[in-house]
């Protein structure tokens, strides 16, 4: 079930480099599963100057202000669309569709899992961690970012994760480095059977490889192809063609918005991105 709604901004808060928006979006939060996302229209309702929609991970779904399932997005102001969204204020309306995409697949057994998130892309991992905890999966977490301002709050995660590794490029918090530098060790220590990862393509490729080396499954949440708009985010436009390995090893293209954004890490043809 998917909904197209005029969501209302209930709250907006700056944390570090990101704007956290809480929205009332009937039908979106209720049906959400970790790894699904919402598509946002840029600009005032009815103004069709920017036709491509902007996808955002659904970060949290919470009861708030009398609403059963408000939706929280974490927005990094970058280009026109994200800046527009980040500057919406309480009471503003935002056209939104969701929940969209194939979410993370959960393990049937309570196996140990490793969650690896980079920058703002780590957003879908937090609700995932909660679900995994509910299923008694021991959760370990690797969080990486360029610097402290771009690190999604590890504080929240302390409640759900048993081990957390933090790594920043400038060393402003945690170890100095990049996720690929620490992921093999984190895998070894957690002895994870499944790795869930979200971040840049290069990071995901490294994580998927590390998982394979370790003998673990990987589930990666891709934001690829990132060099072209995801115009519709609903599977209609063919804009988000992503190269994968098909059923019988044959190369083919899937729609990242529909067949993804969560995919098996060993299925993505990283070199062809």
């Amino acid at each position, binding site marked *: 079930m*998917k909904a197209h709604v*005029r969501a209302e901004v209930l709250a907006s808060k700056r944390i570090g480099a990101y704007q956290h928006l809480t929205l009332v979006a009937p039908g979106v939060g209720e049906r959400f599963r970790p790894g699904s996302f919402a598509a946002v229209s840029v600009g005032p309702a009815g103004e069709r100057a920017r036709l491509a929609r902007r996808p955002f991970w659904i970060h949290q779904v919470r009861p708030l202000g009398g609403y059963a399932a408000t939706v929280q997005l974490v927005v990094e102001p970058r280009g026109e669309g994200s800046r527009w969204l980040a500057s919406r204020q309480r009471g503003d309306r935002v056209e939104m569709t969701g929940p969209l995409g194939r979410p993370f697949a959960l393990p049937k057994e309570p196996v140990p899992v490793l969650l690896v998130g980079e920058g703002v892309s780590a957003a879908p991992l937090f609700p995932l961690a909660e679900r995994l905890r509910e299923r008694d999966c021991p959760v370990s977490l690797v969080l990486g970012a360029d610097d402290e301002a771009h690190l999604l709050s590890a504080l929240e995660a302390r409640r759900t994760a048993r081990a957390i590794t933090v790594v920043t490029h400038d060393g402003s918090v945690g170890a100095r480095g990049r996720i690929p530098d620490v992921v093999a060790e984190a895998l070894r220590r957690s002895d994870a059977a499944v790795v869930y990862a979200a971040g840049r393509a290069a990071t995901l490729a490294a994580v998927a490889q590390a998982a394979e080396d370790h003998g673990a499954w990987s589930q990666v949440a891709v934001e690829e192809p990132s060099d072209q708009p995801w115009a519709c985010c609903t599977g209609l436009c*063919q804009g988000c063609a992503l190269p994968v390995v098909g059923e019988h090893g044959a190369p083919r293209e899937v729609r990242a918005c529909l067949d993804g954004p969560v995919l098996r890490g060993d299925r993505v043809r990283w070199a062809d991105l």
Partner: protein
Amino acid sequence: MRTSLAGLTLASPVLVASGCGGTGPELAAFGPLSAYGTFTTRSITLDPRPGAAGPRLAESPSGLVHATGLPNPGIDGFLATELPWLVQSGAKVVVSVVGRSLGELAELARRLGRTPGVAAVEINLATPDPVSNGVLELREPQHLGGAVAAVARELPRGVPVLAKLRADPVRVVESARIVAEAGAGAVVVGGALPAALPDGRPAGLSGPAIAPLALRCVREVALALREADTEVDVVGCGGVHTGGDVRAFLDAGAVAVAVGSALFHDPTTAARLAAELTDIPADTAGGTPADHLGGEER
């Protein structure tokens, strides 16, 4: 609001434009396909096509520039994996076809003509980039007649041919007359217009940006077909987003409008416009979505 198009009775004068409704289920996640006048498939070729490599889309001011390369599973794949679901869904299915030659078009029509559930066949004569897409280039209006005749010949009575023409003001009227003579039951006026992606690759431009161009062509074609005393209907296509756009095209002489890229922006557009036509007096119909428009996924 029911309407009639090329002898077919449609539930609504709001149609889903070719290539903009996915394979069906994607759009059905937001509302039943039976609410639309037709569900027109993306253009199907004889052989499967993977689609274009490299960035396929770019935003332009109030437009969308696209070079998808006509990805589709080929007629066999389509008939096996997509059509049955569409027919089941209650959609009035129009299958769009495109080919490298008149022979290919005829072959496509032959296969479709035998298949129950195909309400009509639309020939895509409006590809913005026939050359780079490797499909029949029909530069002159005369060539279009041949394509329509080749397809019409293969279809049983009751399965009309719709000819989709580019909104090219210089040739569109002559083209419409010729395809009408060649047996088209309706003309769809207004495909994507030939444009370039920012990196220069040839592409098509769709969206509200092109609406005034399509409107001009629709009016001229409707006028010319009426003067020529044909019974050929006109469908308007290009940049339809609001109730105002629908009314402008209907006022210009179209019996229906096809909604394309607006569905990418808001997948409930066509349903909303169809409902507006039924429920709301013309002069109060607005262009913004209802506060809560949802739907069942299949």
